[in-house]
């Protein structure tokens, strides 16, 4: 078979593409986050730094890359990992430049016009909201995945062009290898697979008869998957982050325990994400129309994020425009460059229609807010369509260039002047750059780091802190493991206590001495004896034997020393005590009088559900559980509906908190599903303001109330606190929590 590449086809514009990539990188550097951020960011920075294992499937290639990034000698650890995200996305923009320029080279003889069109593709793909927002902080592994996606796309386009020969064969084997390697970063690595298969069948169908080549490709793909071997090896060393614990080694690494059936089954459970128990595709989690609607909602965000809905009309117009331009770009692609279309067309289909069907999401967190009671994703899942919006940008750019061309041929003039006259139409491509800047930029955003410090510092030395989900847990892991802050505190998150591996990890966690220099002033000047007993009195085998739930549906008495709590299962999340509830009570029992015990104020009504309200005493951002009922006196004041407040301690902690100033400096809170974090600060200020007002400290009370109102204004959360009394903050979202065991219905 001969090549379809025209003999006079220009060489790819690698130099111009590189310049475009550098400019995109500069944009990302200007808007780069200086530290960690909400959701999974802290988990993945911690995993990279400790060479640990993040949540299933464990993303071993990312962890390796991230670890290497942390070794560079500049900036903070978080900045180094954030830079990895920025570099990957700048690389993606470089590749999309090449792809667009290649399609245009079949259509345009003017080189500068081709390069201009390709630059529009790079600009659009880099500034689409989700791409930009994910590229300026390493929230997870998606920008690395996107880079693999783009590189494999370019290699496939080259394979389509290359004459049949050894080079084409090697390219195909390399493509297979990179698909496997991309999967070792994230399962989305396989997204390009169907499009590659279509391209092979369309361009060189006889390839499938070449068994040696196919075998080499399959072996290369297998080689690309081998980074998964990192997981059991690292897990056997029990790093600080060891999610899923994919090893059979209980103490230290060894050949026998590594090559055991336990290791194999745990590793496969991790890779297959068994702990999330996602339903079969036939069991739709929302109507298909709603799932397509979610894609469209986030598609609208790409061209103008408009996070507070103040420009919804313009947002819709832009979405329709860029959707239409994308369709037009697809038509242009089909007409001008059929060879690469056979790859890129199926690719767009895979990352739009097929991906919507495959992801099978519930309603989006921000989707159709008027529908009450429908199952929803805990957060907005726009990042799962990163590949979709990124690739669509290439077609949208081609469509915009087609519009430019249509105008140019209709105006009077000679040669290049017609193109120059009509070139301003290309400025449409700069809309996302301008419109998304405020919402996509993470420059100067330090709230998450401050929040982690503030919540940890609310806990006395050697305390235990019960948390609920991603945003009151992962930032704390980051602060402890990466920055070395308050490592004496044991953070126990209820959503993970339902797994088998997490209680074991808590038991293995070493007791770290309290470092007063990194703690708040309120804990200075006292001796804090270090506990000598493990966090659980149980052995690993005993922890493993804790049932997934106990079928108790009537109130039960929990008693330890002077503490007597009536646990009402009907107030618990699942209606019966599940493993996490049992283990929280076990922690309370085992550490009674040994370690201070706290429940974060982000856990909603968990204190009440466990019957611990009489023993709860608010100290800053957490409720301390005392061994006797909270007294009422000048320092510990009862607030109706909220329990007792330790006024001097909370006030002292509040003065040390960096979170409020950071939120005010940012001046906005874009991500609504995590708005409970600023709400927790606001609630704290209002409660303290009320108590101090009652005690006659009007000046202090007014200052706190003013801060609360300012915070409420900038984060648009004032409506949560409009009642006559201070309200407790809403709980944090649970995140991608493992599913608890199915619990039988109440007979």
């Amino acid at each position, binding site marked *: 078979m001969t090549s379809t590449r025209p003999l006079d086809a220009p060489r790819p514009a690698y130099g111009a593409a590189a310049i475009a990539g550098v400019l995109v990188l500069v944009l990302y550097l200007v808007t780069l986050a200086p530290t960690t951020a909400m959701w999974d960011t802290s988990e993945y920075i911690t995993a990279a730094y400790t*060479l640990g294992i993040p949540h299933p499937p464990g993303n071993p290639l990312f962890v390796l*890359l991230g670890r290497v990034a942390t*070794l560079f000698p500049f900036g903070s650890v978080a900045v180094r990992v954030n830079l990895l995200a920025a570099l990957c996305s700048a690389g993606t923009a470089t590749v999309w430049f090449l792809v667009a320029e290649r399609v245009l080279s079949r259509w345009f003889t003017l080189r500068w016009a081709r390069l201009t069109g390709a630059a529009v593709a790079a600009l659009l793909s880099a500034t689409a909201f989700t791409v930009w927002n994910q590229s300026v902080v390493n929230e997870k592994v998606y920008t690395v995945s996107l880079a693999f996606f783009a590189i494999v796309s370019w290699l496939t386009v080259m394979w389509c062009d290359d004459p049949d020969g050894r080079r084409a064969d*090697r390219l195909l084997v390399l493509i297979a*290898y990179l698909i496997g*390697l991309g999967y070792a970063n994230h399962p989305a690595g396989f997204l390009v697979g169907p499009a590659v298969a279509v391209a092979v069948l369309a361009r060189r169908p006889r390839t499938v008869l*070449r068994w040696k080549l196919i075998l080499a490709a399959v072996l290369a793909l297998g080689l690309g998957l081998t980074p998964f071997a990192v997981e059991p*090896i690292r897990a056997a*060393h029990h790093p600080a982050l060891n999610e899923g614990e994919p090893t059979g080694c209980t103490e230290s690494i060894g050949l026998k325990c590594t090559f055991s059936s336990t290791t194999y089954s745990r590793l496969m459970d991790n890779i297959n994400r068994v702990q999330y128990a996602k339903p079969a595709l036939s069991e739709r989690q929302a109507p298909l129309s709603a799932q397509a609607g979610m894609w469209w909602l986030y598609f609208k965000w790409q061209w103008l994020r408009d996070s507070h809905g103040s420009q919804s009309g313009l947002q819709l117009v832009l979405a329709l425009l860029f959707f239409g331009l994308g369709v037009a770009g697809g038509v242009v692609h089909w007409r001008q460059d059929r060879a690469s279309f056979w790859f890129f067309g199926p690719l767009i289909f895979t990352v739009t229609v097929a991906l919507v069907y495959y992801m099978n999401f519930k309603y989006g967190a921000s989707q159709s807010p008027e529908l009450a009671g429908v199952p929803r994703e805990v957060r907005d899942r726009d990042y799962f369509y990163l590949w979709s919006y990124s690739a669509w940008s290439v077609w949208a750019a081609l469509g915009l260039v087609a519009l430019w061309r249509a105008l140019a041929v209709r105006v009077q003039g000679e040669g290049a002047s017609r193109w120059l006259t009509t070139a301003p139409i290309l400025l449409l491509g700069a809309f996302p750059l301008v419109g998304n800047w405020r919402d996509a930029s993470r420059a100067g955003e330090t709230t998450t780091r401050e929040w982690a410090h503030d919540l940890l510092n609310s806990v006395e030395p050697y305390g235990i802190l019960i948390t609920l989900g991603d945003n009151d847990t992962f930032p704390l892991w980051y602060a402890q493991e990466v920055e070395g802050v308050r490592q004496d505190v044991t953070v126990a998150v209820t959503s993970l206590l339902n797994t088998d591996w997490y209680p074991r990890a808590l038991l293995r966690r070493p007791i770290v001495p309290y470092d007063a220099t990194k703690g708040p002033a309120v804990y200075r000047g006292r001796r804090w004896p270090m506990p000598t007993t493990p966090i659980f009195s149980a052995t690993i085998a005993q922890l493993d034997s804790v049932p997934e739930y106990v079928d108790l549906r009537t109130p039960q008495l929990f008693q330890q020393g002077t503490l007597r709590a009536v646990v009402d299962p009907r107030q618990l999340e699942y209606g019966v005590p599940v493993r996490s509830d049992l283990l929280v009570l076990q922690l309370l029992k085992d550490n009674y009088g040994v370690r201070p015990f706290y429940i974060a104020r982000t856990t909603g009504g968990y204190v009440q559900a466990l019957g611990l309200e009489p023993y709860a005493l608010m100290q800053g951002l957490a409720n301390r559980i005392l061994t006797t009922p909270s007294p009422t006196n000048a320092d510990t004041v009862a607030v109706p509906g909220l329990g007792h407040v330790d006024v001097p301690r909370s006030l002292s902690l509040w003065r040390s908190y960096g979170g409020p100033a950071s939120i005010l400096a940012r001046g906005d809170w874009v991500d609504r599903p995590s708005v409970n974090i600023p709400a927790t600060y606001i609630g704290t200020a209002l409660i303290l303001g009320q108590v101090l007002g009652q005690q006659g400290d009007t000046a202090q009370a007014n200052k706190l109330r003013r801060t609360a109102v300012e915070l409420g204004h900038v984060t648009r959360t004032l409506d949560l606190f409009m009642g006559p009394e201070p309200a407790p903050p809403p709980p944090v979202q649970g995140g991608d929590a493992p599913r608890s065991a199915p619990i039988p219905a109440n007979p």
Partner: protein
Amino acid sequence: MIRPFTWPAHTRLLRWSAALVLLAGYVDLAAGGLTLAPVLLVTGYLVLVPLALLAR
């Protein structure tokens, strides 16, 4: 006629280098290495293997 797929013999050195670097990376990882191991593995997976596959 279907052209057979062959592996160029002169890329053997690159292939062996990739294999050795990856092996050394895994050995250091098993020994608890936190610095050399990831550097070797990233070099092996992202540089040497692609070079070995693509070399003319």
